[in-house]
């Protein structure tokens, strides 16, 4: 059941491009799925292992620039960025982990925030390699219509789901949650906390980087302000998981659907649109107060609320 259900959902979703949908709607579908990947990746580190990262834009941007630089400097297809981003992000995560995983609590959170920003500024200034704020533009994207991009990202999401599910259901999953709940207790119970935190960070980073490499190929243009963006990438990743439900398998999927649609909708409202980040902020506060476990985690609570309304 647990293995087949996501496959069935993916199979159904794979049929979506066969419907006569507008290019805009297909774009939204692709964004929802891409953000679901980032949400699942963030959730592995922030939700299960309890290491709340404010800097996932670092991984996303590294993935995007792996693809961008391969395309720009070597003249290869941007799709080579997918495997290459895995190598780049793995190395980066190991180095980053060596430094930041010594820190605990707010110090860890702040250091991830700083790393995301450091990479943005670095990318802006390394203009020989990244062309700085000019960004990197693909002269001709692989496909003009969106359906192939859709299938690629759907396949990536399915893979991500299985990776997270396999990790969480195994010995590692128990270790991750044990570290989240009490690092000293976990350590004294024979769990190598440094090793397991490094694994969580690296896997989470690599999955996010893959989404970034896809983003470059899909959008055809990246610049440091877009792919290393703090509110647009790092914070949105957190919001998706918080809204959907941290440390649940389905949470990031639900969260990504809601947040991407909400972002599109709020942005289209005249005057309020420009303040969409403020709207998200208010939403986040409400979620933390009333549904601290997210829509999926507090599903029983939501159902009770509606049942009570019907009864009265």
């Amino acid at each position: 059941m647990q293995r087949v259900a996501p496959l069935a959902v993916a199979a159904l979703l794979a049929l979506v491009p066969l419907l006569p949908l507008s290019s805009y709607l297909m774009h939204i579908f692709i964004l929802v799925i891409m953000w679901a990947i980032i949400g699942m990746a963030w959730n592995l580190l922030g939700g299960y292992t309890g290491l709340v990262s404010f800097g996932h834009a670092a991984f996303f941007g590294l993935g995007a620039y792996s693809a961008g630089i391969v395309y720009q400097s070597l003249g290869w297809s941007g799709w080579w960025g997918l495997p290459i981003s895995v190598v780049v992000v793995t190395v980066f995560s190991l180095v980053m982990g060596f430094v930041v995983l010594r820190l605990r609590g707010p110090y860890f959170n702040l250091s991830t925030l700083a790393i995301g920003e450091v990479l943005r500024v670095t990318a802006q200034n390394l203009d020989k390699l990244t062309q700085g704020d000019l960004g990197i533009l693909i002269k001709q994207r692989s496909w003009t219509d969106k359906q192939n991009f859709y299938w690629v990202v759907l396949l990536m999401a399915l893979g991500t789901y299985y990776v997270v599910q396999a990790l969480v259901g195994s010995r590692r999953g128990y270790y991750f949650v044990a570290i989240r709940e009490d690092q000293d207790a976990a350590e004294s119970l024979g769990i190598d906390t440094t090793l397991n935190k490094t694994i969580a960070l690296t896997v989470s980073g690599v999955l996010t980087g893959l989404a970034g490499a896809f983003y470059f190929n899909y959008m055809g243009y990246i610049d440091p302000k877009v792919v290393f963006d703090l509110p647009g990438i790092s914070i949105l990743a957190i919001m998706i998981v918080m809204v959907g439900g941290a440390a649940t398998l389905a949470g990031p999927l639900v969260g990504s659907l809601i947040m991407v649609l909400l972002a599109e909708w709020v942005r289209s409202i005249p005057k309020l649109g420009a303040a969409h980040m403020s709207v998200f902020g208010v939403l986040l506060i409400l979620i933390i107060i009333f549904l601290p476990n997210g829509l999926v985690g507090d599903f029983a609570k939501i159902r009770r609320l509606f049942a009570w309304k019907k009864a009265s």
Partner: protein
Amino acid sequence: MTALLEVREVSRFFGGLAALTDVSFSVEKGEILGLIGPNGAGKTTMFNVVNGFYPPSRGEVFFKGERISGLKPHQICQRGLARTFQVVKPLQRMSTLDNVVASAFLRAKSKAEALAKAEEILKFTGLWEERDMLSKGLPLGSRKRLEIARALATGPDLLLLDEACAGLNPCELDASIEIIRKIKERGITIMIIEHHMKVIMSISDRIVVLTYGQKLAEGTPADISGNAEVIKAYLGDPDGD
């Protein structure tokens, strides 16, 4: 024959404060060693040094003949030395069962094996009925027993119990004493910190007394309860200063 655990002239300083000064003792295989002393004597610090949370400032700790001081807690746990915490540290948002499963993975090759081990341990410690409860919802008595269950699930040869009986009601106390006795019957050596004299005197084979970070006395429960120095450390000087 070498002792299971040997503490050699261990000192531990926090800034200028000497929490432990040149303490030496050993734990023989199969015994229950009680570690007692007034508040602030350095008992928990001693556990933290043995368990690897603090490296000793001076001195060495040997376990099964191997030097373990300087290793990390998880490495020491892998070598067969497990502990419980005085201030219980349950993995709060995990069920009682999952708490024990997470520890049992240390020696289990598969999830099924870890689950089987956890089931056996939970039945042994009388927590099986509460297996599906989140551990933050457990009453204190059960949380204290969960500490023991988790430590046992790592398959230790030496178990350090830090006030595993503190704060329990008389009924829970008897149950815990019974569990500690049964752990000894399994061939697991125990070192226990306890303030409850009834517990410490009835289960210990030998007792080490610490005061102000130094070893004051060592001996059988009968020796210790008759030792004038120990009585002085606990009750003050009878001559009245």
